[in-house]
Every structure is written in structure tokens, then in C-alpha cells.
């Protein structure tokens, strides 16, 4: 490869020079040595820049010989003597030019190489740094995830196992007639509730994993606002059991179409409201149209969200309890993923999610999201089909 490269450089030099010489040939009797020298100089400069000093030097000698051979007076035609002083001058000029051009080109090439190397080094360094950062983050992320998952999965599982083994124990020890059915019912209720809780965690993790892996593309499936509201409220029925829930949505807004995942968001906001406001306080859901957006709002009467963390609460694993638990425990607070999932879903749908404080200085938070209006349910075409 290297040999071939050398061959190309030297061979190419002679080929170029020969081409110029041949091009000059028809004009030979009329051209002066100066013209030939100028043309050859150009070629040599090109050679020096592209192929280096070596071929250029050899080319210089060849050029000097060529000029000497063809352009000295007829008598000495076939002699390669340096007949005249200016031939020597021409040769020196050729050589000097070749060397200078070759060196300049080589230096420029070195600079470029150096820059390229420097750039490459920087790039690698940056890459390593960011990989390290990502690794650190994902390590931390994994450990937090593992902690919360094991904690939050194990807590309900512990209750289930304790309750179930107690029941096994009861049935083994006491005859059926003597069993305390109230106590057994309580244990059974624990099993049911805690398995529901486990299931909710699994749902949440699945939603989260979908968002993280980017597989949560905006779906084309659209449903009317009233169905979105109805579905999420039905799903949240258990967590909202002790509260008065009011829904405000006029018939027009109710028929507007929204992407299906917004129901998941609304459910998460309802769950969030139930978790962070005192038991028994009302929750208010409002759907309205504002310009080309549908805005859905979930209002609670909890302690509200302080202004400085209104952005932060949408980050994953961020947990905040306005109630200020005395023991500092996070039991019942969830994974700290709900609002992060909600934001993730809303963003893939091209919408916005945010939190404001309650109107008129009343306590409580208003979580809101807006999604671009997709289309109206009732098109004139379908009206005709029904008639």
C-alpha cells in the first residue's frame, strides 16, 4: 500500500510534467523557455502541495533537464550540459520553489492533523465524561428504583402474607363454629386491599417503564372527554371513596375528542389529590375548552404546593408531603413517579401540565393539564348516517 502510494506520487509527477510538455510541444518553435518554465512551475507547485517535497524535487530536476534539452540553441541540442548560467538559475529556482511549497504544504497538513487529533481527544474525553455521568445517574437511579420497588412491593406483600398465615393458623387451631368471623373478615379485607395496592404499583411501574424506554408514542386512539372523565373517575373510585367528587363539564366539551392516555394522567392526578389532601375533603374535576386546547383541572383542599417546588414535583422520585409526617416515613406516598409519569404522557401528547394554588387564596392545589384539541366527535357525515 505504501509502495503503491509512493509509485503514484512519483509516477503522477512525471505524468503531469509529461502532459504539460506534450501540451507545449505543438508551440515549440514559438515558445520561449520562460513560458515553459512558468507552466512547469505551476505543475511543480501542485505536486509539492499534494504529493510532498520528494516528488517535487525530482520533478524540478526533470523540468530543468527538459528545458535545457529543448530550449537551448540547436547546436547543443542533445547534450544535457548546463550550457548557460540561467539554466542553473532556473534549476535552483525550481528546486527552491519545490522545497518551499512542499514544506508549507506539509506544515499545513501537520497542523490539520494536530487539530484533528486534538478534536478526537476532546471528543473521546467528552464522551467518557458523559458516559460516566450517565452511568452514575443510572446507577443511582437503579438503586433508588430498587429501594422503592422492594420497599413498596414488600410492604403490601408482608401484610398479605401475615394475614393469610394468620388465617391458616386460625383454621388449624379452632373448630369452625368457634372462629371469630369479625377478626377473619378484617384479615381478609387486608389481603384484598393490599393486593390491590400491589397491582397499582405494578401498573405504575409499567407506565413508567414504557415512558423511559420511549415506547409510549402518541397513539391515534381518541375518545370523547366524557369517556376519559368517566373512566378515570371509575378507576379512582377506591381511592376517592370517602370524598365528594364534583365534575364540571358542559356537553360541548364532553364530546371533544382527546387521546386515550390522558385518562391515565387524570387518574394519576386524582390519586395524587386523594393522597395529599385530608380524608373527607372534596375533590373537583373541571374540563373546559380554551382556544384550541382542552384543559382539565383537578382541585383539592390539601395544603397546596409551595411555589418553589412546583416544577420539581413533576420530577421522578420526588416526594413531598405537605402534611409533614412526624416519623419522616414515606409509607403511602407512593413511588414518587405518578406526576413524572403524568408529565411524560402529557408531553408525548404535545400538551402541558402544571400546578397552581387554589383560587381566592383558599387552601389547596389545582393540578391542570392542557392538550391540543384533536377533533369533534360529531361530524356532519355521521349525523346523516343516524337519520
Amino acid at each position, binding site marked *: 500500500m505504501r509502495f503503491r502510494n509512493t509509485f503514484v506520487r512519483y509516477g503522477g509527477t512525471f505524468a503531469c510534467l509529461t502532459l504539460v510538455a506534450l501540451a507545449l510541444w505543438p508551440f515549440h518553435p514559438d515558445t520561449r523557455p520562460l513560458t515553459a518554465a512558468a507552466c512547469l512551475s505551476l505543475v511543480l507547485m501542485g505536486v509539492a502541495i499534494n504529493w510532498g517535497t520528494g516528488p517535487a524535487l525530482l520533478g524540478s530536476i526533470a523540468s530543468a533537464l527538459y528545458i535545457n534539452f529543448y530550449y537551448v540553441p540547436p547546436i547543443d541540442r542533445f547534450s544535457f550540459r548546463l550550457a548557460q548560467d540561467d539554466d542553473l538559475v532556473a534549476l535552483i529556482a525550481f528546486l527552491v520553489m519545490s522545497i518551499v511549497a512542499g514544506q508549507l504544504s506539509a506544515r499545513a497538513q501537520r497542523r490539520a492533523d494536530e487539530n484533528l487529533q486534538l478534536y478526537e481527544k476532546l471528543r473521546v474525553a467528552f464522551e467518557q465524561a458523559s458516559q460516566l455521568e450517565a452511568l452514575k445517574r443510572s446507577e443511582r437511579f437503579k438503586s433508588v428504583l430498587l429501594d422503592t420497588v422492594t420497599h413498596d412491593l414488600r410492604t403490601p406483600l408482608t401484610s398479605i402474607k401475615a394475614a393469610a398465615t394468620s388465617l391458616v393458623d386460625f383454621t388449624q387451631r379452632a373448630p369452625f363454629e368457634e372462629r371469630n368471623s369479625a377478626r377473619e373478615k378484617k384479615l381478609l379485607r387486608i389481603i*384484598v386491599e393490599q*393486593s390491590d395496592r400491589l*397491582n397499582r404499583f405494578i*401498573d405504575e411501574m*409499567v407506565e413508567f417503564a414504557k415512558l423511559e424506554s420511549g415506547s409510549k408514542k402518541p397513539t391515534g386512539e381518541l*375518545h*370523547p372527554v*366524557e*369517556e376519559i372523565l*368517566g*373512566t378515570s373517575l*371509575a378507576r379512582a373510585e377506591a381511592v376517592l371513596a370517602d370524598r365528594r367528587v364534583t365534575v364540571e363539564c358542559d356537553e360541548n366539551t*364532553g*364530546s371533544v375528542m382527546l387521546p*386515550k392516555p390522558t*385518562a391515565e394522567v387524570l387518574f394519576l392526578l386524582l390519586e395524587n389529590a386523594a393522597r395529599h389532601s385530608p380524608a373527607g375533603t372534596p375533590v373537583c374535576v373541571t374540563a373546559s375548552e380554551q382556544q384550541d386546547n382542552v384543559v382539565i383541572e383537578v382541585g383539592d383542599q390539601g395544603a397546596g404546593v409551595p411555589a418553589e417546588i412546583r416544577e420539581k414535583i413533576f420530577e421522578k422520585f420526588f416526594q413531598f408531603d405537605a402534611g409533614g409526617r412526624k416519623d419522616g416515613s414515606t409509607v403511602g406516598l407512593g413511588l414518587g413517579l405518578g406526576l413524572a409519569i403524568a408529565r411524560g404522557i402529557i408531553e408525548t401528547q404535545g400538551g402541558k401540565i402544571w400546578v397552581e394554588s387554589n383560587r381566592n387564596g383558599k387552601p389547596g392545589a389545582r393540578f391542570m393539564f392542557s392538550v391540543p384539541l384533536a377533533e369533534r*366527535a*360529531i*361530524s356532519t*357525515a*355521521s*349525523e346523516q*348516517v*343516524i*337519520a
Partner: protein
Amino acid sequence: MTELGNKTARILIVDDEPDIPEVLQTSLVTHGFEIRSADDGETGLDLFKAWQPDLVITDLSMPRMGGIALCKAIRSASAVPIIVLSVKGDEATKVHALECGADDYVTKPFGMNELLARIKAALRRSSRALITSNVLRAGDFTLDISARRAEISGREVPLTPKEYDLLKFLLENADRVVTPKTLLMNVWGRTYSDQSDAVRVLVRQLRKKIELSPSSPKYLKTEPWIGYRFKPGD
């Protein structure tokens, strides 16, 4: 109709997860059902032919023959009610199963009370499927088929022809989950099979006429992401 009254109803359970048939069997036997189970679709289908159950409960994803294929195979030979077990988030498969002949679905993990209610509704439906007189009665609803008139609790409700067709189909399939596509095929005919908007609008119109509070319907309920379920009342 009296067949089920005289003998215990037979339920075939098809699921490749062995714990589920076991738990269901333990519980359903105490409710007076006779249970057999199979751990894949093919064995399930063989057992179905040999044992002639009154109801089939099947999982959707199973090795060899899946739940959908089983639904199709059973439906091609029998009208026996089928309840499919599915997981959350897989609505497309549920809809597909319903359109391939399943009557109802239950999402895993489910409560036994929920499954029992579905089983009883499905058996009730299949036992009254052969009403031949000119009057279709179910719960609070009475339809006079020849006069195309509808009454709710004795009060006549004026309906447009399309609304009447929809109500009749829903009554014939009471307690069953019906998808918008099924409604389009049966109420409109095949030509409109892409117009799920039309179904929504017609459902809204019908609700305004038959429901006391159309936004929280008592009879014509929405089955989230799947379709509708008509509960004619007791």
C-alpha cells in the same frame, strides 16, 4: 331455559397458569358449579367437544392454541357463553376476542365476586336466548317487535327507527359487552364499518331518551376503551 335450573352448570376453564384454574375451581365448586380445566387451547377444545360445558372461561395468551383461536373454534360450533381473562392495557386483544365470539371479559387480577357476577349474567343470558314471541322483555324494557314500539317500566318511549334498532340489538345482547364495530355491523349493516362516530352519536341520542341522567347512565353503560354493556335492570 330450565336446563340450567335442573342440573348444575358446567364450566370449562382454560388457562396455562395452573394456579388460576385451581383457585377458581375451589371457589366455584362452593357456588354449585361443576368445573373442569385444560391448560391450553387444543386440550380445551377437545374437552369442550367431549364434555359439553355450559360456559367457557379462557385465558387469551396460551401456548399452542391461544384464546382467540379457541373463541373462534367454539363459536363456529356452539353459542355457549365465553368469558375471556385478560391483562390490563391490552384493549385491542379484548376487542378482538369480543369480535371473535367472546361474550365478556374480566381483567386480571380480578375479584371472585366480579367473576361470579359475570358468570351468572352470562348463564342467565344464554338461558333466555330463545324468546320467540312477538314481545321482547328484559328488566325494565319491553319491545313490541311487530309494532316496533318500546316501553320502559310501562311508559312508552318514542324512538327513531335507528334508535329502535340499536335498543333491540342491545336488549338481545343484554349484559354482554358489545364493541362499536359489532353495533355497526348489526344496526347499520356492513357498509358503515368505519363510522364509530355514528355509534357514539346514536348512543348519546338513545341515552337522552331512556336514561334519567344521560351523563351517568343506568342502563346503557360505557365499557372503557372496549364498547358498551346494556343492563336492562332487574
